[in-house]
């Protein structure tokens, strides 16, 4: 990281080919390091792009993608099929709902936590809390879903058993559609909040301490300092992360809804990723799966660009 940051400072003046050669000789290790990630993107991200064509063709495993037959309706057969499929429309609705909730409730959560942690005077406590808070990030959703069952199942779940014994009755955390949505959102926050906080804490560290001193001299209290120093300092980071989140509004995790769902709440838990899995991949409808995936990506890109444009109009730096 440090070497990489220093590199542009040296700035080998490209006077001639000799200059470039010296430059490369000096920094070849950095380019070598870059080679692996580049190869990764070339092999796993760019090469398969040709296979997007499958969305417009009749999938056939024995032929190459160029030789497969075109789908009906000028190649749009599978898009028409998807949009006339009720399950896909439900999945689309659910994807947007769940992601919007995640955005509205989940996006501010790490900012709040970062602000709170930043205000802690007792540094050891802060470090421990921070570590504990980001631990769940390393748990797979399969494990979390099993934990959720152990805790929230109506008869055998620990939380519900405790509630019953205290005389409150059971709460259908997992077996009622409305409750399930909130359980889903809450578990998402619990899993990711600590990890997402790290970026904000790093950004806070980068804020010039003189600003705080100046604010104190002006008589600002803690809240004033948060509102007038910390938050404005965080604004660029928040905007970039918000743009990225908006880009994911139609994208969906597969493992989170797939692991947490059950047959009762299917009407709210079936999202595009799970639809692609059951109706596309598992049923060997590869063209349908690709068509839906392509649609999803295109919409995501539109959202991403839209959010970026708006941010730039509002005077932020944006992504590009």
């Amino acid at each position, binding site marked *: 990281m440090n070497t990489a940051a220093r590199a542009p400072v040296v700035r080998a003046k490209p006077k001639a080919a000799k200059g470039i050669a010296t430059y490369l000789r000096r920094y070849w290790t950095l380019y070598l390091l870059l080679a692996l990630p580049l190869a990764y993107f070339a092999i796993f991200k760019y090469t398969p792009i040709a296979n997007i064509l499958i969305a417009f063709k009749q999938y056939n495993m024995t*032929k190459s993608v160029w030789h497969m037959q075109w789908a009906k309706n000028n190649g749009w057969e599978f898009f028409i099929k998807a949009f006339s499929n009720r399950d896909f429309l439900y999945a689309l609705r659910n994807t947007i709902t769940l992601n919007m909730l995640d955005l509205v409730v989940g996006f501010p959560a790490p900012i709040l936590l970062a602000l709170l942690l930043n205000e802690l005077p007792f540094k050891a406590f802060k470090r421990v809390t921070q570590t504990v808070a980001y631990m769940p990030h390393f748990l797979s959703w399969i494990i979390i879903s099993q934990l959720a069952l152990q805790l929230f199942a109506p008869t055998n779940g620990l939380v519900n058993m405790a509630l019953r014994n205290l005389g409150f009755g059971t709460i259908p955390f997992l077996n009622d559609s409305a409750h399930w949505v909130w359980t889903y959102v809450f578990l998402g926050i619990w899993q990711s909040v600590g990890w997402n906080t790290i970026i904000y804490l790093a950004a806070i560290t980068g804020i010039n301490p003189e600003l705080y001193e100046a604010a104190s001299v002006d008589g600002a209290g803690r809240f004033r300092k948060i509102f007038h120093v910390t938050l404005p300092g965080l604004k660029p980071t928040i905007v970039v992360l918000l743009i990225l989140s908006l880009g994911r509004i139609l994208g969906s995790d597969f493992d989170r809804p797939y692991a947490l769902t059950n047959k009762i709440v*299917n009407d709210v838990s079936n999202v595009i990723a799970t639809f692609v899995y*059951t*109706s596309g991949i598992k049923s*060997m409808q590869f063209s349908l799966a690709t068509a839906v995936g392509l649609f999803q990506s295109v919409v995501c890109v539109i959202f991403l660009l839209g959010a970026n444009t708006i941010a730039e109009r509002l005077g932020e730096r944006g992504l590009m």
Partner: protein
Amino acid sequence: MKKFLALFLAVMMTATLFSFAASAETADSALLAEAGLEVGPDGAYRFIETRKITVEIFDRGLDNGKTSAYDNKWTQWIHDSVLAKHNIDVEYQPVDRWTEVDQLNNLLAAGDAPDVCVTYDYSTIQNYAKMGGVTDLAEYVDKYASVLPSLWGWLGESNIYWDKDPATGSIWALEAKLAVNTRINTFVRQDWLEKLGIAEPTTLEEFEAMLRSFKDNAELLLGDEADKMVPFSLSQDVGWRDDHLAAAFIPETITDKDIYVYGFDDRHLMFPGYKEAVRKLNEWYNEGLIWPDFALYGDGDTTEDNMFKAGYVGSMIHNWDLPYRDGDNGITGNLHKLVGPDANYVAVTAFQNEAGLYRKFLSAPIDRKVFLTGANDEPLASLLYLDFISNADTVKFLQVGEEGKTHKVLEDGTIQNISGQEGSDPEWIQNSLNNIDYTITINGLNLGGDIELTLKSIATGYAGVDAALIAKAYDASLLDGRIGKHVAVGEVEAEVGMSNPLAEKRDVMLCNAIIAKPEDFDNVWDSAWADYLASGAQAIIDGRLAAWEAVYGEATMLP
């Protein structure tokens, strides 16, 4: 005179034998030469040059003392025997049993699938056949019939031609034969019945009364753990777990045509009368007779299994022998340890249909589907391998093994399977029940046609379980069963790719209908049903109806 007669008979017999042998050989010699075969010293057809084939094998993991699925005493025995008999060098390729369809898909798509594949999912085969990824067996099975006596002898025309397309004549797969058609049973805790002084239920009313009695006497039956009481257990796979109950609500007069037309869903969801069976479950649920968390746990979750083992569950409908499996680690084994030696599940027949029969809808006598991949360049060697595997002696050896190593012979001749138990040879452990994973053309114990001996042997094959319980379960599972028939109308276009999404919808619909408030039941069911039909089921019904009428016309019953 006597002497003369004896001599005459002897001469006649020898002559007949020779003429048979001779005719068989002469008729085939051209065929043999073309195929590169010769008649070996033991009379078997063997390749002059060694052929190599790969064969798929289900892998069930290594727990409980199991050995490698593809390299153990059994596979070595098969390998050596096939090499000696037919000069075929077999290599096994393992595929995980529980994700076989997904894994096979990957192998087929990557072109890495073994020469001989086996799967329970015909639609996978059909899909790849359409893309040219499967060998058409039609010409081989007929042309080489004389070389494949055991295969033809065991599967017969019915199973070999089962998947023959009526329009094109192609055969993409051979259907293994189901030797034992047991499917599902209704189980009740025998010791609870005794404690409460209730007789085994024989009607729906008695069964319901029994459930209520379990619930009302939870303290007596479970003591401190009374709140764990589950009178009737279900899982998210409601269609499987309500089978006997549902079958009782289906009209006795249902025709073969309707069974086919409304039979896309293998849980019989679309059969007339099914809704009323679910309404009954809905009543039970709202009365607190059903495990409330049933819909939350996914496939393969062990929560419910642990409740059986801990002794909290009064009754269930499940796989015909489920409580008796796995010896000490199984349900009965645990009940005996945790509750007491009398704690047993007994199979009952409690659900009569309108005609007073304990009707259940059993599978047609087919099982796994064996097919050869398109890249297979040894189709004949592959079929000869299947011939070897279908040979009665091979089957018997694989199913029961050697005495003292995998089985004991009891006084009355019953063959008791002791694989994995004390006194057996751990090297010769059977990784699957009766080595079903190696005998890919048969499912179910088959001791050469002696049905009584077979049944006794099945009944003694469960360690630590009273043989009488098994015998009872066996009978109950088959009682008044209506065996599926073969409807040969070819492929219905509307079915392609629909089995997964519709099965998912079925489960969702059944779970939600059961937990609905009684007054909402009709609403919940009707809207889910309309959605189910609109999502492809209606198109399948129409397609099947047209296909049936095209082949069978006005007929509603099959011979």
